[in-house]
């Protein structure tokens, strides 16, 4: 991609981006194209990071491990649902990842946790997300009992209107009371340390950023 085009792209992205300045955007754009590699731009094909490449980044850079959550994060980035993260999705996603306000993050996390996208986190969804969170104890008759109990505990804590499922309002209220509950059903945001590391490396010299993929 030629220099001029890149500049124009950066310029456009900066306009639409809340949390990054021009330098940062251009660093991230550069990084994006480094990651995508030299794919000739042809009309009709979308340039971007596919699910696997993106998951790799989440895993290596932001230390995420939970497959399901990573899938959901990918969907969170891939706004247009075309199966790959384009450069603008990349910038917007990272803007939230690195600089998002609590409101933005709550919205994003809720979307991640709302597996079927119906606007509620149901008991089943919770169970699904928490099912690997407890050490299995074969001695118990029902190995899922602990998980079920955990779901009940969570519901008791967060379901403010007592309708047996979490609406965004429930979630928001609970998180405002206790920020720790933001990522209640699994880590879907980078932790501070990897975030700092990422920023330090990317915004210093994006060309040297090494993924060890």
């Amino acid at each position, binding site marked *: 991609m030629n220099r001029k085009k890149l500049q124009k792209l950066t310029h456009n992205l900066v306009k639409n981006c809340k*949390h990054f300045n021009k330098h940062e955007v251009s660093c991230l754009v550069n990084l994006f194209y480094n990651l995508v590699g030299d794919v000739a731009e042809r009309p009709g094909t979308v340039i971007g990071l596919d699910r696997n490449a993106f998951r790799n980044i989440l895993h290596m850079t932001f*230390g*995420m*491990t*939970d497959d399901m959550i990573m899938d959901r994060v990918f969907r969170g980035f891939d706004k247009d649902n075309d199966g790959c993260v384009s450069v603008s999705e990349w910038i917007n996603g990272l803007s939230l990842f690195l*600089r998002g*306000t*609590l409101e933005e*993050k709550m919205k994003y996390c809720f979307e991640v946790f709302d597996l079927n996208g119906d606007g509620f986190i149901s008991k089943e969804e919770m169970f699904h*997300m*928490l099912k*690997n*969170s*407890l*050490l*299995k*104890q*074969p*001695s118990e008759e029902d190995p899922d009992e*602990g998980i079920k*109990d*955990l779901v009940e*505990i*969570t519901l*008791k*804590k967060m379901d403010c209107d007592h309708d047996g499922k979490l609406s965004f309002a429930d979630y928001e209220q609970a998180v405002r009371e*206790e*920020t*720790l*509950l*933001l*990522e*209640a*059903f*699994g*880590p879907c*945001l980078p*932790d*501070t340390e990897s*975030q700092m590391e990422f920023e330090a490396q990317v915004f210093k010299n994006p060309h040297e950023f090494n993924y060890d993929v």
Partner: protein
Amino acid sequence: MGVALTRSAQWMAAGCGTETLEITPLNEAILNEIIVFVESFIYKHPQEAKFVFVEPLEWKTSLDPSAFESGYVVSETTVRSEEADKNGEPLLFLSVPQIKIRSFGQLSHFLYIARDTKLKEAQACLEANRDPVVKILGSDYSTKKGEDSSALNILDKITKDDDPESEFKMSLATLIQQLDLHLLNHSLKHISLEIHLNPSTVKNDIELLKRFSGKGEHTVLESIEYTSDYEFSNGCRAPPWRQMHGEVCYVTVKPHDADKLCVTCSTEGVFLNGGKAEDKGEINYERKSEIYQDLVTFLKDKSATFSENMAKQENKFNEEKQKEEKEPEEAPPKEGAAAIGKAVAGSGKNTLEKNQYTLGKNQIGKRLEPSLNWKTNVGYKDNRSSLKDTQEDKYGSRFEKPRSPVSYGRGQKSPLKDTQEEKHGSKLEKKRLSVSYGRTPALRKGPDKIEDIVSESSSESEEDEEPPDHRQEANADLPSEYWQIQKLVKYLKGGNQTATVIALCSMKDFNLAQDTCQLAIRDVGGLEVLINLLDTDEVKCKIGSLKILKEISHNPQIRRNIVDLGGLPILVKILDSSNKHLKCLAAETIANVAKFRRARRAVRQHGGITKLVALLDCAQNSTEPPQPSLYETRDVEVARCGALALWSCSKSYANKEAIRLAGGIPLLARLLKTSHQNMLIPVVGTLQECASEASYRAAIKAERIIENLVKNLNSENEQLQEHCAMAIYQCAEDEETRDLVRLHGGLKPLASLLNNTDNKERLAAVTGAIWKCSISRENVTKFREYKAIETLLELLTDQPEEVLVNVVGALGECCQEHENRVIVRKCGGIQPLVNLLVGINQALLVNVTKAVGACAVEPESMMIIDRLDGVRLLWSLLKNPHPDVKASAAWALCPCIENAKDAGEMVRSFVGGLELVVNLLKSDNKEVLASICAAITNIAKDQENLAVITDHGVVPLLSKLANTNNDKLRRHLAEAISHCCMWGRNKVAFGEHKAVAPLVRYLKSNDTNVHRATAQALYQLSEEADNCITMHENGAVKLLLDMVGSPDQDLQEAAAGCISNIRRLALATEKARYT
């Protein structure tokens, strides 16, 4: 076939060399348990039964080949099983008499075949295979060398190798582990049934008692002696034919309150025998009393003094016991990081093992090593009844759970640091404690506990006595929260970080301010987990955990538990974190925990003070990130928490010093300039605490802190006002500081704060500040302007002593001025002051006497005091045991005597009063002496009284004091001497008692007051010729000549008079010579 087995094999054969198992009921029971286990193995665990041992179990069997039937290839001398391993080797191979077996399946079969000789075979097998687990599972599983092969260890090993068989191996290992515990438990029951003393325990007991015996009230016994000096090689002193009956030795005991007792110590216990016949030296061996479990119990029953004194000595006694106990074996960790959890599990096990050890040896009857465990043994027995039921099923369920490796998200460190074994340990310990408390606490506590408490009581003298550790009784009715919290703790232990965070948030919703919840968290093992979580890399888990710790650490017991569990070093480490929220929470938790000395010391020793001081620095860096990250917080908050923690820590002297060295004072001074109340309170609190040190007071002055303290007196917040006033109170010892308070306008707010009397703490602080400030005259004038004196007088009644001390102190200072004395009199302040003279609070008495004395300067006031019988009250205070009170009372008496109308008569009316005063000259307190001299000066003004005190021997006593370097004493002594010269031949007597020469030396002092008094005394004394000679010899003339040139008229006059007397004598001598 487990750890217990190898251990039991160890003790059963201990010391013998030949590896045989004794036939004892205990061993038999263990063997039977093993047999049942092995026999049922094939049905219960068919899969594992096929597992081929790493090495065969090999021993000599007495079984005949013909006994084997189907499934075996039998020949005359050999038998081989049809069942074979992968390589075709038979799993059972008998070649008479050697037999090799390589699977549990075959073992089961074999035992089935052996029928009646099962027991013998099992015994032979175990004797030949000392560590069967190694043979079965491989040398990794050796239980012999390692002390602890916990379930987790084994699991670790198994998960490491990728052997396809590992699954079987693992379940086998777990099964063996279970059996192991079952056996241990089983043998415990047996052991506890039969308690035996052995010679070494008896010996140690007697040695210990000897140390605490002797003459005197505080010893436990008058004497305790063996009847025989000869000790057999087995440690017994009883003659061999009596040893047959298990008797160990005989002792004669002489308690304080009973006749001599002759006691038999046998392995069965301790009892009274028929006594020793004096003439023949023979002992009547017959038993005359019940059998007691040990000597101490016996004596407690026989002698009341013993049990009383023993209770006093108990700690010491136990400590010594402890020490000895630790010598023979590896000491259990004293205060390991997880004292309760880990160490206790360890020691619990140790004691268990040791008990068996002792018992086994006893039965063999070999030379014994010292072991003092019978005490714990007894403890077990006591507990057994209550333990038995619960314990067994606890073990049953707990140990069945094999640990499977868990993969945590994001490389989180496992919060499940404690193993199941520990759980077992702490459970056991907990119950032991709960049962044993209430009986003889010191005796029965776990070894670590005693150690801890003893070391504490010696070092902790402050406000923080160790509260008794109330654990929930196992059977007590537990609140529902208990079970809910227990469940949450389970999830904390067994959850990944997501589950952990949920559990933490949910736990936070309990009422953590409530005792029940606080203790429930601890009692279900939650504290350990919470502290372990702090050691992980998970920020969210740490935050959640700290939020809970911060709340529950308000409980004094929890504080101690946190320290015992090694929580402080971790908390201190978190202060280094880059996450401010974490820092804050850690600092706040430290602020709560560091409420007792041991904790404060721990904070310092782990470098916490420096780090906390560093937190104070945060507020200044205004380079806050534009958008603070999610779990972050503000710098000011960090500094506030830092100050809060420092406030708690600053109650220890060494910490004050550490704060100063870490550069804390300038930072505190800077923070003091902010206007956040939340911040100011801990900052001022710290300063106020530290201001007890002179170095701080100097720094406070230098850093211009007073200005801000004064400013904050005007704050709205009562607590802040209180701490500011307190800080001023501490600092205003210094004159410059007092002036600073005035210059910054601090006196007015202080005076106006007097009007609010509801908050007593604040009132005490404010009156204290007023007291210290009123030491400066200018300040007193200001206070009078602000009508503070009237307000102070109103506070003389119905106030707590802390307030009264300060109020009276302030009045004492104010009454140094005439105007104020008038105010006090006019406002009717004398009556309440005199009323306070009957108190007992020493500080109050010192201040009251001073105030009354100050008032007495005014003749009108003096009349009131006299009418109220104040002088008599003051005089009685001369008998107060405390020298400060005595001195202060004597000082107060001076103006009283001086200004009373009929002073001589009044003084005489106090029966024995003059004698009392004269005798106080024997005191060794300089201040008392000076004050009494001053009083004598005034008393001696009345001739009659002077005669009385002369009769009481005032002259020699005063003379004896003459050799002193204390200028204050010199002055008043010289005055007293000069006044006492007015009677009879006292002038001569002073000379005879060699008071003159020292007096001359007083003239070399730098104090004009001393000079004046001395010159006056010398003038009086110089009327006696001999004294003149002494003065002349000591060079008084030259010194006096200098004094004549003094600007002080009295001094001039006295010096000149003295010189003239000396000169006159010289002239008279000359005249006499020439005529």
